């Protein structure tokens, strides 16, 4: 009898080894492990055996059944994994075919820089104060310590409207007066604002100069605002805007609405201060004009300059954007060529 078990095992395993698909597996299982299969047949012969052999034979058939089931599962897993591998292989696509063109959209580079500015200044307690583009001569010049015929008026080529009292602001500085008057509560409250906005100058439009450009003006007024605060604040801005170890340099300068006045240079971030074409081989890039608010301007804003002081600064976002991205032509900004805009 044991021969019949061995023969069956041999035949079954041999048959299983040649099976490669599900149908074969089902047929094999029916043939050997099914209710009417060969193993069941062996169980059926137990009754015809002598009593003494029954137990042993039964055990051996059980073992055979277990062995064949295991072999079946192994074979089944193998066939399934082979099939999966085949399917994966057949399902391969050309990953180099072009993507579906999704519309990306984009924010104008000038806006991007303004956002960066606004965020940095907001973190430092400076909030946005919006002021008007079409200004009175008085606010753009006279109240900023630039009376009519002042030599410094030559520094700015102004667009006048047909009403000689009204012009397009040449800088965001008239917003200083408006902010002081709006927020200063008659010269009794401190102020910390930035004034972003479009400015206008009657110039030849070239790769380097435009008739309209944006500026960000900053203004802090308080009872104890010091020039060292201005330096510290600008240095902090430079660290956040350019790099944590940006070096800053200050040059004495002149703006009618600040005194003392200074220009702020940051170490050229393109050459690390070693000198390059962009920084004109000086290692420095001019980033801001700044100074302590002139006493006359404080007065015109409603403050007593013997009690109050302040600082102000002005920056040009387009210039900074140009430096950062190596943009050679300022006319790109208002040209709105999608081939330019899509690069941001």
């Amino acid at each position, binding site marked *: 009898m044991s021969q019949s078990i061995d023969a069956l095992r041999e035949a079954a395993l041999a048959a299983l080894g040649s099976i490669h698909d599900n149908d074969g597996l089902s047929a094999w299982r029916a043939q050997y492990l099914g209710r009417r299969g060969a193993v069941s047949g062996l169980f059926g012969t137990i009754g015809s055996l002598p009593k003494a052999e029954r137990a042993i034979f039964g055990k051996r058939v059980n073992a055979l059944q277990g062995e064949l089931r295991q072999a079946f599962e192994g074979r089944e897993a193998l066939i399934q994994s082979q099939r999966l591998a085949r399917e994966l292989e057949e399902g391969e696509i050309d990953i180099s075919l072009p993507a*579906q*063109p999704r*519309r990306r*959209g*984009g*924010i*104008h580079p*000038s*806006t991007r820089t303004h956002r960066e500015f*606004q965020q940095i200044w907001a973190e430092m*307690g400076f*909030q*946005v104060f*919006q002021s*008007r*583009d*079409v200004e*009175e001569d008085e606010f753009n010049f006279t109240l900023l310590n630039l009376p009519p*015929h002042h*030599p*410094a008026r*030559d520094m700015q080529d102004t*667009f*006048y*409207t047909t009403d000689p009292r*009204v012009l397009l602001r040449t800088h965001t500085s008239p917003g200083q007066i408006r902010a002081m008057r709006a*927020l200063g509560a008659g010269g009794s*409250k*401190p102020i910390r604002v930035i004034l972003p906005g479009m400015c206008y100058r*009657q*110039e030849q439009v070239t790769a380097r100069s435009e008739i*309209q450009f944006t500026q960000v003006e900053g203004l802090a007024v308080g*009872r*104890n605002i*010091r*020039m*060292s*605060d201005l*330096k*510290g*604040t600008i*240095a902090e801005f430079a660290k956040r805007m350019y790099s944590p170890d940006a070096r800053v340099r*200050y*040059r*004495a*300068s002149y703006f009618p609405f600040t*005194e*003392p006045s*200074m220009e702020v240079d940051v170490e050229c971030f393109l050459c690390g201060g070693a000198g390059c074409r962009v920084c004109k081989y*000086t290692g420095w890039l001019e980033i801001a004009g700044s100074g*302590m608010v*002139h006493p*006359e301007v404080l007065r015109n804003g409603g403050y007593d*300059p*013997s009690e109050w*002081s302040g600082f102000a600064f002005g920056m040009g976002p387009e210039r900074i954007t140009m430096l950062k991205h190596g943009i050679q032509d300022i006319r790109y900004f*208002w040209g*709105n*060529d999608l081939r330019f805009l*899509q690069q941001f």
Partner: protein
Amino acid sequence: MLVPITWLREYVDIEVPVELLAERLTLAGLEVAHLRYIGLPQATVPGLVMPRSDHLVWERDKLLLGRIVEVKAHPNADRLVMALVEYGGGELEQCVTGAPNLFEYKDQGEISPPLWCALALEGATVWDGHSDKPRRATLKGRELRGIYNKSMVCSEKELGISDEHEGVILMDHDERFVAGMALADVLGDVLLDIEFTPNLARCLSMVGVAREVAAILGTEMRYPAYDFLAEGAPIAEQVAIDIREPALNPRFTLTLLRDTKVRQSPFWLRHRLKLIGQRPRNNIVDVTNYITFELGQPLHAFDYDKLCQRAGGLPTIITRLPQPGEQLETLDGEARALGAETILVADTAGALSLGGVIGGGETEISAETQNVLLESAAWNNISIRKTLREQKVHTEASARFSRGVHPSQAILGCQRGIELMRQLGGGTIASGVLDNYPAPPPAPTVALPIARVRQLLGMEVALADAAAVLRRLEFEVAIEGDVMLATAPDFRLDISADAVVGQADLIEEIARIIGYDQIPDTIMADEMPPQRENTAVLTEERIRDILAAQGLYEVINYRFTSRESEAQLLPAGAPMPAADSYVEIANPAASERNVLRRTLLGNMLENVVNNGRYQASQQLFEIGKVYLGGGALLPQEPQRLGIFLTGARAQPWWQEESPAPPMDFYDLKGVLENVLAALHIEDFRYERGTQPSLHPGRSADLLVAGERIGSFGEIHPQVAARFKLTAAPALYGEFAVAPLMRQQRRLHKVAALPTRPAVLEDIALIVRADMPAGAVEAVIRQAGGRLLKEVTLFDVYMGEPIPPGKKSLAYALTFQDDARTLTDKNAAKIRKKIIGAARHRLNAELRS
């Protein structure tokens, strides 16, 4: 202004390299834009980054000061001569040259007084004088028409001094000259090109710059001599002054030099004037220019005899405003009509010159002039600026007077000028200076407590140090306790008499000279103002993000346009805005940019047309101001949102069989509704469009909370045709931003997620073809009640089997109850109600 370091050194000792000096000047507010080297090497200063100069450096052993002993004819060539040059070596160097300015010495024997030249020896590198482009050449020995020649007498071009190559450099004798000196020690120079801000009017001269240098370096200032040898008759007997407008002409001085000779100025004077870009003329005119640049006090020289002729006796110089219709022909040959505010220098016969600006032709110095009347005056700078604006003339004199020259300087210029003229041209100076100075301004004295300096700068400054800085700047400083009483020097006009402003003026001087780098960096200790959120800015930025996320690109345009351009945006017959509703530019950059825009449409159309050349499908937006004038002094400047869509809904792609259809009204409506949804604005509706630039049948007005805030839709076909935007619908919407900001819900409630399953039902209704879909949906929603959660129109159909004049609208309906699970039966009941309402109110039929 160009400042030769050799000239500057006459007034101040400079021990630091010129590169470092330039840096110190720049940091102190005198911006040195450029250094121009003449012959001298560029120094490297540790820590200082500079553009590298590519100039010619004169080799000290090969480029020498030579003395031309004799000039001989060349034996074989008429157009060449041989200069015999002593240069400190054993023999005379024989240079063959064609320099025309040596021919007058040919075969004249030994030249006396000594004539000096720039001698290049064999092996020296110079610029090639014959090359148009800068090209270096090294001197080699060679035969020139039979005479061996190995050295050269140089022109200015060959040495890199100027472009002059007409003749060689010939220098007058100078006691300091020794044959064989390195040329670098004689003509070597560095020119500082300094740019002056308007507050530095006092620095527009060599002495002015030298004062700053002395203050910055802490060295002594050496002023030029102002005394003069006056041996003639008293000036007051020979001329008179009559100032009629002392406010415009606060001071007028005159000196007289008789029996002088007008001739060419000596080499040193011509050389200095040429270095700073001035053309030498004659010794008299050159001195007036020289003093202008040396002291910053412009001078004017008259031919005294011509004045006497005009006066028919002793002249009286009158300064006055013009008479109506008065004219003057100035030195530049221009016959000028004189405006009412132009201050004139005149005599009894009429106008002589525009005071402080330019002289008249008639009384100018000529080769025959023997007697020179020298004017040195002071002028009101505002008055000069008005003259400049009116006369459109700019001179070195007007550049200084228009920025302000202190009247105290007039007398110095007069004295220094007349003495220099005497030295160069000979003659006798009249005794005394005729000086009319009706009201000398008091020098402002500022009381400055040291505490104020410390407080404003945030820096510990010792009282003594602050006072020392001011004294270096020539303030007179008295100290009373902790207060400095500083009196401004007489050359400064920029120190205010106002107590607080004057303090700021002085604090700036102290900080500038100590150096801004010495001020510490601090964090503001001052009270922080209350922090407010700026809703306008946040909303704008939010809208930008929403639109960019939908694939739109932000544009920012010129705010300029023209009425004609804006007229192009309207169909024929539509009324234009009133003329005065535009902000009009008086001095526009171009005629098509002579007003400010009243709509964003014009710019955006232009953008689309420009980009259309290479990109058919475009989605753009702009958020920016428009300017609505009329009535008030200043216009309103509301912020607008413009959206422009045109072209295919999607770009072509290899998986799509056919190109995507063009975007239409509903695409724009979708973009808009996303904006409204993102701002949580729910109270809005549409009405038929009223914007004349848009297609009346294919546009809508947007009303938010009942307020009409903008229009959108297809551009009017007549307008679109003008811009050749006919290939696909051009879709545009423009909206006021402020109402969006006001109506947005910043804090909206979030609904709980449904826990019960939804029941989905479809329904198709047949209605009149002209029935607005919005009306159908409204009826469905109303009838559906609170359990009808969503209504989605998924098909609009006309044609068989739908009867003519009708259309079928198919909706997917979602029913859901948050409290219980709806059954199909519940849903069917509501559906029935909806069908009933549609039948009753819309005369609709259910499509089966």
